[in-house]
């Protein structure tokens, strides 16, 4: 075997090894979390409230807070994001303003989440005086995921063939009728995929919520958008910092719950993606 051949084989092995190691880290993380937390996941844990005794603690407030947050964030971000995507994709053209918007959105997607937290602090907490409420948290997260929603929605819209639009216009429909009745339904699975991905990003965010002032001890379920709140990632952060073994188990169990929720959400995204593929090929 020549040295070039040998190098080739060696690199093949190296590539495989690197991949296995990287995914092995993922496996190690999951195994570690499962080992620490699986025993702790129970109905009483899911429906209980925080307590000074680790074994009696539960994460209902955090779970409820996260679900509330995700709901409010989606309500705020989805109409605006999809609307912006439609505006840019269907009406925007290739003008300077449209290109500026595109560059701007791409940059916003790369801004660190903690800076969005500072934005939320400055605007929602100080100026609008929404204080440490779910509204402030959801508003901040909505701004954070808006670029993602816009970018993925535009991709979904782009996937609709031009022939559909042209046919609709040829039949006498207005631009908006075309969008509403033809383009959107066809792009819907792709839109859903993008929205779900954006929402799962919002679910896992911690830093912006800390910056706007989410509390660590909230022993009740939120009762409205202006309620103080806590969320699953914040609960994990709080429990991680407590060295007692019991709280480490709680943190691990909460991570399992969070990952489970994310798995369900992303599973839905995959199903939606498959439906889109089948629809388009039909």
């Amino acid at each position, binding site marked *: 075997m020549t040295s070039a051949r040998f190098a080739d084989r060696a690199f093949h092995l190296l590539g*495989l090894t690197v991949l296995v190691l990287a*995914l092995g880290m993922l496996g190690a993380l999951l195994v570690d979390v499962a080992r620490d937390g699986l025993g702790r996941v129970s109905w009483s844990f899911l429906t209980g409230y925080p307590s000074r005794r680790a074994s009696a603690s539960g994460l209902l407030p955090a779970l409820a807070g996260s679900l509330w947050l995700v709901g409010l964030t989606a309500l705020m971000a989805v109409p605006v994001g999809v*609307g912006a995507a*439609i505006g840019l994709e269907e009406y925007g053209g290739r003008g300077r303003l449209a290109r500026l918007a595109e560059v701007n959105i791409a*940059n916003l997607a790369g801004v660190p989440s*903690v800076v969005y937290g500072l934005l939320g*602090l400055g605007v929602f907490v100080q100026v609008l005086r929404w204080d440490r409420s779910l509204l402030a948290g959801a508003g901040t997260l909505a701004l954070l995921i808006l670029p993602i929603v816009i970018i993925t929605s535009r991709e979904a819209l782009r996937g609709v063939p031009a022939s559909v639009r042209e046919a609709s216009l040829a039949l006498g429909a207005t631009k908006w009728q075309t969008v509403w009745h033809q383009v959107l339904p066809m792009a819907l699975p792709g839109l859903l995929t993008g929205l779900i991905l954006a929402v799962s990003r919002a679910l896992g965010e911690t830093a912006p919520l800390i910056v706007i002032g989410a509390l660590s001890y909230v022993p009740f379920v939120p009762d409205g958008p202006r309620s103080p709140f806590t969320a699953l990632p914040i609960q994990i*952060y709080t429990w991680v910092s407590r060295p007692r073994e019991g709280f480490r188990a709680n943190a691990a169990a909460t991570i399992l719950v969070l990952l489970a929720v994310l798995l369900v959400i992303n599973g839905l995204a995959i199903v939606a993606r498959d439906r889109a593929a089948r629809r388009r090929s039909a």
Partner: protein
Amino acid sequence: MSRLAQRARERVIEGGLAVCAGLSLVTTAGIVAVLTWETVAFFRDVSPLAFFTGRTWTPLFFNQQFGVLPLVAGTLLVAAIALATAVPAGVISALYLSEYAPPRVRRVAKPALEVLAGIPTVVYGYFALLFVTPWLQQWIPGLTGYNALAAGLVLGVMVLPLVSSLSEDALSAVPPGLREAAFALGATRLQAAVGVVLPAAWSGVSAAVILAMSRAIGETMIVAIAAGQQPRLTASPLVPIETMTAYIVQVSLGDVPAGTTAYRTIFAVGTLLFAGTFVLNLCSDWLRRRVPGAVR
């Protein structure tokens, strides 16, 4: 509906959509406005020279010092460790997936890497503090509980999928003709990959690396949990440090009153962070727009 009414309705809808699209510009304007407002006020009390060149950061203490270098050093140290992990591993796995891997492996590996990217960062922080650090302490006796090494390694694993998938995109965008020409001349896959395809995809791969650097610099939870809360100008990865992002979180957890110089430090640091990542993102964007496969 009459044509006039219909057109009016269309106009209104178009207006609404334009407003939605404009909101993204408003967001950027908002970020810039909030950051600038507080930072300008900050620099009225603290000299920019002291801020950018000072080597001690104790804005909350008796002897207030506002030299931001320790925070910047902490951020760059962790980012450097992360990149040292993610770039070689990411590029190698991209090359492997693009040039070597059979379709079966690709079908499993690609979604798996996406999962790696989708895990919340607070979970990675947990992993770094409670698993990686104790494990490293077995091999490195002087390693303290909070350190840059564990945080950097885990951060590297987190950005690896970014490097890998973007590099792979760049590699796939190289015209197959180049690859085939290399094979026709008798090159092995490795020689073709490293000698021809990789250089052709260079701008795309560089874009990926720069974007990864931007992500690493902007990351908060992993470093807030595992890297420590002690601003310290050091190159040692074995001791507690503090990054810019962790500092913002630390102050937010307390209750420094709005309007004080100490409060404004989070915005000054935030501005630095925003400016840094913004520049990196622009570079990455510019590199990605360049035509891939251009042979020099």
